[in-house]
């Protein structure tokens, strides 16, 4: 994790869960499109689920990573007000999940590794989303991502909430940027349900243990990618460099495995998730 820097007033290593949660939504934070532009070349956006429509909340396509063909995709929250609306604030509809798995299956056929960037406060809770089977779309994706015979590296780059994140989030490796968060529900949602009070968001953020450090301790992720002190937006280039190095390392390890061993490894990874006594 980031080293303390005496010259910076906000050393990120001392931030509270809620402060990190806020950093993850910082308006200048690099988002999916920024990461795609910085880390990949020849990005060609591929659109649509071939059934209903294209979901602009998810950007996906083929590209090259250090010259190797690959697939990259992620939820894009958007930056300007108009763009944010177009992107539906990174909240996907079922057709977005169906587009995602379509393009992952394309990667599977052409033996390209898949890079996934997660940045969402959840799947979109709307009428049409329900009518078109939000739950089914997410469930099917989780199941079918497990079957992919190419390396899948997932990184939580900002927000990572609920089935909306996991619907494109099952991978051989799961990384988190230092100031991202990952949980079963957003702290706002949790505060509303368990405390009946949205003002308790900060309390919920602490209780849910949603920071990269906590999620790592619970055995859910493989690595934390350090950010510059004060957050990724203060020095995007430094963030890209660390992120790139982490992806190179994990891809190299995964490329050494036979396709069936990737699936076996995925089984072993998720089979042991959970804490209980017997």
């Amino acid at each position, binding site marked *: 994790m980031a080293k303390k820097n005496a010259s910076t007033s906000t050393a990120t290593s001392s931030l509270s869960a809620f402060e990190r949660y806020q950093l993850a939504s910082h308006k200048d934070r690099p988002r999916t499109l920024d990461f795609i532009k910085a880390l990949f070349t020849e990005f060609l956006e591929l659109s649509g689920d071939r059934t209903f429509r294209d979901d602009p909340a998810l950007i996906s396509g083929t590209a090259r990573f250090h010259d190797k063909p690959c697939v990259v995709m992620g939820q894009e929250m958007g930056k300007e007000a108009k763009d944010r609306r177009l992107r539906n604030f990174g909240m996907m509809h079922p057709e977005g999940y169906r587009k995602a798995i379509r393009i992952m299956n394309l990667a599977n056929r052409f033996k390209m590794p898949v890079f996934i960037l997660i940045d969402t406060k959840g*799947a*979109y*809770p*709307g*009428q049409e*989303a*329900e*009518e*078109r*089977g*939000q*739950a*089914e779309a*997410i*469930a*099917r994706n*989780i*199941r*079918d991502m*497990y*079957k992919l015979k190419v390396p899948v590296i997932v990184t939580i780059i900002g927000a990572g909430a*609920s*089935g909306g*994140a*996991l*619907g494109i989030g*099952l991978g051989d490796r799961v990384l988190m940027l230092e100031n991202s968060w*990952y*949980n*079963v*529900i957003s702290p706002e*949602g*949790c505060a509303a*349900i*368990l*405390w009946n009070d949205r003002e308790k968001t900060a309390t919920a953020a602490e*209780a*849910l*243990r*949603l920071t990269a450090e906590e*999620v790592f301790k*619970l055995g*859910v992720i493989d690595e934390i990618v350090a950010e510059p002190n004060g957050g990724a937006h203060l020095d995007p280039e430094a963030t890209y460099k660390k992120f790139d190095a982490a992806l190179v390392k994990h891809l190299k390890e995964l490329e050494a495995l036979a396709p069936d061993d990737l699936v076996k490894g*995925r*089984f072993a990874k*998720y*089979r042991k*998730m*959970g*804490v*209980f*006594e*017997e």
Partner: protein
Amino acid sequence: MGSWFQRPTPEFIKITAPQTREVRDRIPKDLWHKCPNCGAIITRKDFKANLSVCPACGRHERISAMDRIQQLVDEGSFKENNASLRATDPLNFVDKRKYSESLEAARKKTGLNDSLVSGTAHIGGVEVSLGVMDFAFMGGSMGSVLGEKVTRAMELSIERRIPCITVTSTGGARMQEGILSLMQMAKTSILCAELEQAGIPFISILADPSTAGVMASFASLGDVIIAEPGAYVGFAGKRVIEQTINKVLPADFQTSEFQREHGFVDMVVERARLRKTLIVLLRQLMAMPPIPLEEEEGSDSQVVVGKA
């Protein structure tokens, strides 16, 4: 509600349902069930004999996991497994009270260790691996224990090559286990892929309510998905959606019938026909010969056609 309940009212209801207030008042309150939908009053004994379905309007009341199992399986065939699995409190989670205290209260209230009862049983002579949720245990929420028990139920199915059946009744993931509860969606969905790969049937039965993280994982991945009439089935909560889109949604939004119309549920089956439907389906999927079914109903039992 009501249109899907077309069977004649059972005779015993007519005989025992009291007609006057005076008659009711003479009998202790806890012996009567009052339907929250239509207000019909019936003795608890008769209500239970009617599978906890209101004989007047057909409302399917939530039932305990043990009652569900008793209704579905061949008498005396259920053998519980993994009953000793218990949730710990890995997050040291505290909301209005400690998670550990909520767990203790739920255990006391239900007599269960967690929100799912699993085991093996026979249904119409077909051996199955069964996982049944109990809404009374913390809203049937899915934490590490539930995920592990569903996973083991599916693994047992693969090992013994017997069908797997789950009955869900849940508000979704257990927030008190944070990210670990989310991971149960991954764990259980992976086992669905393994069941599929092994060619083992998985039947998902959706009871009221079946929502959120459970619906967005194994419950939506059945080879056949059966829902009880009028059950609340969906991903996002109706109130959350209404707040998001600033619009009041119709009463039938996210019901079993709605989900069938939209293509996400194979059939809506009344509780009285659920066991028989399972017997027919299981024996078909397992390539076993048909067996004569004990008749309670008319000739329509030969062909089950969904109601429009």
